[in-house]
Structure formats: structure tokens, C-alpha cells
């Protein structure tokens, strides 16, 4: 597969770009929900529009009513989401949860709602301040035909708005992923607003009983879901970085100081060019990871670590340069560039920061 978009993919990108720039724009989505202190942090109407556009079904098999497309196409939508900071359940619900439900008995229960942009899922993995899925403490014990879940989770994005929660727990045979309905007995959910005004949740599972079908998969499935989620987050960060860079380069072309456009200053030119170069590399790494995932390649695991780490570092560079080059107004809430900085910070933490992924890559490489 060549490392650029096919014609179909380029068409999808154009569609997603237009849609997100109009319907998902910062002023009408992120700022709106933020300023009204919305408990969900996103708009349900837009989520239904995602359904109408077919975005929610990108990864859903055609047999289940979806488009049956792959990680590259999901990444295309996520990049546009990132570029517009569009708040939506897309990454967790339409990517991670759809990946988790693939082949599960719960498909019929949840996929129709997801396709329509009605159902919202959450993915509960982290138990401490950092992403450490290798050390899950939450337990799942067999009881009768089902399981009893106990433990705590945090940083569960959209956890407070979710109809069901995919939760990672430890069984004797290793980690596994369970689907828990939002009103399960013994489940307590506390929504917390995050820096980017999305909503995360802290969750307590106090002997929550689920039936046998709730087990959507074991370690392999958890790993697959995480790969999808991480690559998706990488795409979203490529979008965040692109949005921040474009905004900044535009500013360099317009702002005058000392009788010149500041984009004429060579020091800023070189830094912008360096950023461009890094961003192109991050985009290539992310696309490569998606293609390898699509091919089911054994090298996908490593490349996913690379993509999440590289996109994270580049996105951070983009927002830092963005704020600094905007100068004072970059620090004001009125301008959007600061919103990119906040979103970047959250996406960097989500599903492992660049340090985590560099470390995992090193272990994979035997050092």
C-alpha cells in the first residue's frame, strides 16, 4: 500500500474536513459546551450528525450495517476532529468500543445505537495518574455464569455520559475487557472536568455483577483495542498539531512588528520550518501504523508506539511554538491557540504519553 491516501480516502478527508470545519468548529462546539459548563462536554446533536454522515460506522463491519473501513479512514476523521478540537465520542465509541465489540455477542445490543450516533461508550483502563495497562489491579472474579468486578478507575473520558463502560480487569488467566452498563449496581461514577473542558470520570466498582456475555475479550482483545485507541489518538494529535501550526503560520503572515511582518524574521521562519518537518514525520508515522494495523502486520505494535510517541511530541511542539509565536494574545482565553495547548496535553496523556511509548518500544526492541 503506498503511504498516501487513495482517491476514496482523499474524498473522505475532504468530506470530513468540510463537515468538521462547519459543524464541528471551535466557536460552535468546544466553546459553546465549555461556556455552558455542559456536563457531557460534547453535543449529542452533533454526535447524531456523525451517525448520519456514516462516520460512526467507519469501523463497523458491513454485515453489521457499517462501512467496513479501516484504521486509515478512522484516522482521517480523527485528524479533522483534532484540527477543529471538535468534542465528540468518536475516538472512544466509534473506534475503541467498535474494535472491542468486533465479534462479541454484545454487537446487537450496542452497534445500532452507535451507528445512529446515539449510544456513547467509555473505556476504563487507567487506575492511577499514568497509563499503566500492564499493572491492572482491578479484579474480575467468576461467580456463577458471570463475573464480579471490583476496583477503581480514573481518567475515563466521557465516562459520565456513557451508556456502557468497557473496563479492563484482571482475571487469573490475565487481563480482560468487560462491558458494564451505566446503571449497574455497585458502580459509582464521578464526572470531572479536565483542562481541555472534556469530561473524564473517576469510577468505583464495588462488587459489580455482570453476566457471562459481558466478557468481550481477553488480553489480546484489550491489546487490540488499545492499539486502535492509541493510533486514533495519534491521528487526533496530528490534527491538533496541524491546526495549531496553520493558525500560527497564518499569524506570522499577518502580524507586523518593527515595521515588518513577523514571518519575515528568520529565527521564526526556521522554527516554523522545523515544526513543519516534524509534523510531516509524525503524520507519516501515524499513517504507517494504521496501514500496518490494517494489514494485521506483526510490526504494527512497534509502529503504534512510534506513532503515539512521535505525534505526541510533535503536537506539544506545535502548541508551544504556537502560543509563543502568538505572543501575549496567545495567552488569552479569547484566542483559540491556547485551547490547542490544553487539548494537546490531555491527548498526550490519553492511552500513554510519549515517555511510556518510547519505553515500551525499547522493551519490545529488547533493551
Amino acid at each position, binding site marked *: 500500500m503506498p503511504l498516501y491516501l487513495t482517491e476514496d480516502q482523499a474524498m473522505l478527508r475532504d468530506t470530513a474536513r468540510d463537515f468538521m470545519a462547519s459543524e464541528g468548529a471551535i466557536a460552535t462546539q468546544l466553546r459553546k459546551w465549555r461556556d455552558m459548563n455542559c456536563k457531557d462536554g460534547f453535543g449529542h446533536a452533533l454526535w447524531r450528525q456523525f451517525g448520519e454522515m456514516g462516520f460512526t460506522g467507519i469501523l463497523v463491519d458491513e454485515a453489521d450495517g457499517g462501512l467496513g473501513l479501516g484504521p486509515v479512514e478512522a484516522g482521517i476523521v480523527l485528524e479533522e476532529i483534532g484540527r477543529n478540537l471538535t468534542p465528540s465520542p468518536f475516538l472512544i465509541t466509534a473506534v475503541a468500543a467498535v474494535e472491542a465489540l468486533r465479534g462479541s455477542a454484545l454487537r446487537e445490543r450496542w452497534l445500532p445505537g452507535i451507528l445512529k450516533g446515539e449510544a456513547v461508550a467509555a473505556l476504563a483502563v487507567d487506575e492511577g495518574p499514568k497509563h499503566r495497562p500492564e499493572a491492572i489491579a482491578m479484579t474480575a472474579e467468576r461467580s456463577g455464569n458471570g463475573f464480579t468486578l471490583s476496583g477503581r478507575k480514573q481518567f475515563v473520558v466521557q465516562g459520565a455520559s456513557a451508556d456502557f463502560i468497557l473496563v479492563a480487569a484482571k482475571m487469573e488467566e490475565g487481563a480482560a475487557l468487560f462491558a458494564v452498563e451505566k446503571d449497574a449496581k455497585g458502580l459509582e461514577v464521578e464526572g470531572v472536568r479536565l*483542562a481541555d473542558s472534556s469530561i*473524564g470520570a473517576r469510577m468505583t466498582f464495588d462488587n459489580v455483577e455482570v453476566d457471562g456475555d459481558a466478557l468481550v475479550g481477553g488480553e489480546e482483545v484489550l491489546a487490540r483495542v488499545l492499539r486502535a485507541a492509541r493510533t486514533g489518538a495519534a491521528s487526533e494529535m496530528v490534527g491538533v498539531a496541524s491546526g495549531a501550526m496553520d493558525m500560527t503560520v497564518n499569524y506570522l503572515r499577518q502580524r507586523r*512588528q518593527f515595521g515588518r511582518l513577523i514571518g519575515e524574521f528568520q*529565527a521564526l521562519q526556521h522554527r516554523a520550518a522545523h515544526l513543519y518537518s516534524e509534523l510531516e514525520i509524525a503524520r507519516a508515522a501515524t499513517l504507517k501504523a494504521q496501514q500496518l494495523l490494517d494489514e494485521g502486520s506483526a510490526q504494527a505494535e512497534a509502529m503504534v508506539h512510534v506513532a503515539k510517541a512521535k505525534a505526541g511530541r510533535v503536537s506539544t511542539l506545535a502548541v508551544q511554538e504556537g502560543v509563543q509565536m502568538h505572543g*501575549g494574545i496567545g495567552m488569552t*482565553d479569547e484566542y483559540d491557540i491556547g485551547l490547542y495547548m490544553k487539548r494537546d*496535553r490531555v491527548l498526550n496523556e490519553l492511552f500513554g*504519553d510519549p515517555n511510556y511509548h518510547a519505553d515500551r518500544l525499547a522493551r519490545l526492541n529488547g533493551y
Partner: protein
Amino acid sequence: MADLEAFRAETRSWLEANCPPEMREPMKSEEDACWGGRNPVFKSEAQRQWMKRMAERGWTVPDWPRDYGGGGLSPAETKVLRQEMARINARNPLYSFGISMLGPALLKYGTEAQKKRFLPEIARGEIRWCQGYSEPNAGSDLASLQTKAEDNGDHWLVNGQKVWTSYADKADWIFCLVRTDSQAPKHKGISFLLFDMASPGVSTKPILLISGYSPFCETFFDDVKVPKDQVVGEVNKGWDVAKYLLGHEREMISGMGLGGTGGSLGTALKERLEGDPILRADVARFDVDAMAFKAMSEKFIDELKAGQAHPAQPSMMKYAGTELNKARHELVMAAGGADALEWESELSRGGKAAREWLRTKANSIEGGTSEIQLGIIAKRILDLPGA
């Protein structure tokens, strides 16, 4: 030397007797700072007492002349006072742009009448000042400012807009750069004007920052009348005063960076670094940089006192100090992980880590951007040609 030791003993016992125990604890937030003013807000009786007692001895400005409300201390004595205050962790009794910025300018450029009129009030914390420099189209290129003061015979008539006026909404007076000759080259038509923020025609509007804080304002002047004797220095030579002051501001900002770099960041984050070997590596390197910069700060202050510092060295301190502080907060956020992302929760103390992290991003912008400082170093210290 014997005199100095006597002064130290005396100072120590005075501080022991007069510094309230509450004022020997670190501030919990910026809001615990005492700023004085016409209608001062004290957080506690101890805070009020502490400011008042220090002001009575002139020790809010220990090295200013006694005639102007200062303590009249020699540099050596001033240092002893600071050491003794540090020894008991005494708080700064009075935060004030009057002390840190306007005062030095008045001492150097003010008329005797101006000094007598303004300095004692500053020393006593009775008037709170703000600084009117930046404008929407005059950021790094400060001298391109457009706020106009027209000579109307018996007064100046001021019209225009300032931005980034820290605490303009809480200040009593403003020191302000205004254009008094619009025909002259841009650096040559500027004057340094003082006026009361209660004057008719002055209005302010707070600027909300990405951190959620709002210490800055936009400040608007609409036909504000200012008495003729409130120009500092010569008319149209305000740029000299401003440059002098900017140096002071840089020193202050570069000094602020130091506050945070006392101990090892790695020690503070210890538990968070277990199982995160790459973050540990970054923090270890940061600690090297921070301790090295701390040595640099000591060296800079020692050289300043001895008159050995290069006049542009504050630019280097400002640059390095603010970049370091930004790096520190990036690491704190990485160590804090998801906990540090919470924006309003009690657990995160209202998003303290995240808001402080965002606030540091202004360090390398305010008081002259990092780019401006690097340009000054290149030109004035390295003697590189052109621009």
C-alpha cells in the same frame, strides 16, 4: 564588619519581636500577597501589622533614602536584612510595582518634588501602581505605541488604549508611556506620564488568560486630563526611562524563576518517577540545569552588586530563567499525569498544577519575549552585526 554584626543582631531581635508567626509561613497562593493601596485588602490582621511595622522602619524599601520613606541602609546592611528575613522565612511585607519598577525610575529621573510626593506613599504601601506600556499593536515592538498625550496648555489630554496592564482594575495610579510627538522618529516622541486611575475617562477590562486567571487588563483612556508636572524625565525622552525600567523588570522576572528552583525537582516528584525511566532521565537533566541556573543567579546577583555584570546580562537571566521555569512545569505536568489534568476538582485543588503550568507560558512573553532577549544578547553582548 563589627558594625555589621551589631546590625545583624539588632535586626534579628527586631524581626523576632515584630514578624508575626503567620507571616513566617510560605504563601499558599499568589492571592496571599499583600499589595497595599488606597483601599487595601488584608488577608489577616497579621498581614496588616507586618506591612505597617516594616513600613514604619522604611524596611519595605530598605535601601531607599530615609527622606523618601526608605530605610537608608547600605548594600551590606540590606543584604543582612534579607538574610535575616530569609532565616525565619519572613514573607515579603509588600508586593508593589511602585517599589520594583516606578521607584527606581523616580529615584533616577524624577524631580525632587516628584520624589517627595510619590516615593513615601509607595514605601508605606498607600498607593498601588500599575504599568501602562504595551498596546494591541505594540507588543515586542513597544516603541511603536500610539496612545497619545496632547499638550493642552495647562494639562495633557490622553487618549488611547493599553493592554497587559497587570492589576489595572485594582491599581490607584498608573505610570504610562504615551506619544507626545507623533512627527518624531518612534523612539523620540514618547513621554513617561503618571496619573490617577480615578481620573475621569479611565476604564479597565480584565483579560481572561488560558489558565483561567485574570491578572491583566485592557485599559482605555478617553480624554483623560493629566497635570503638566506629572511627566517623569524630559518630555519626549520617556523612552530612556522606559528602557531603564525594562532592565529592572527583567531582573525581577528572572528573579521570580528562582523561587521555584530551590530544591531538587526529582526529590519532590520521587514516587512519580518510579516505573517511568524516561521521565526520570528528563527530571535528572532538569535538576542539573536548575542547580546550574541557581549558581548562575547567585553569580549574577553578586556581580550586579559589585558592578561587574554586563548591562545586558539581565536579558540572559530573563531568557534562561523563564525557559527553565516553563520546562519545570512541563515536567510537573508529565509527572502528575491524569491527576494534573483535572481542572476544577478538589483533589487537584482547583486545577492548580494545570493552571500554573499554563501561566508559565507567559513567562517567556511578558517583559520582553525570549526572542527579544536573544536579540539583545546577540547585539549588545556578542556584538553581532545588523538587526
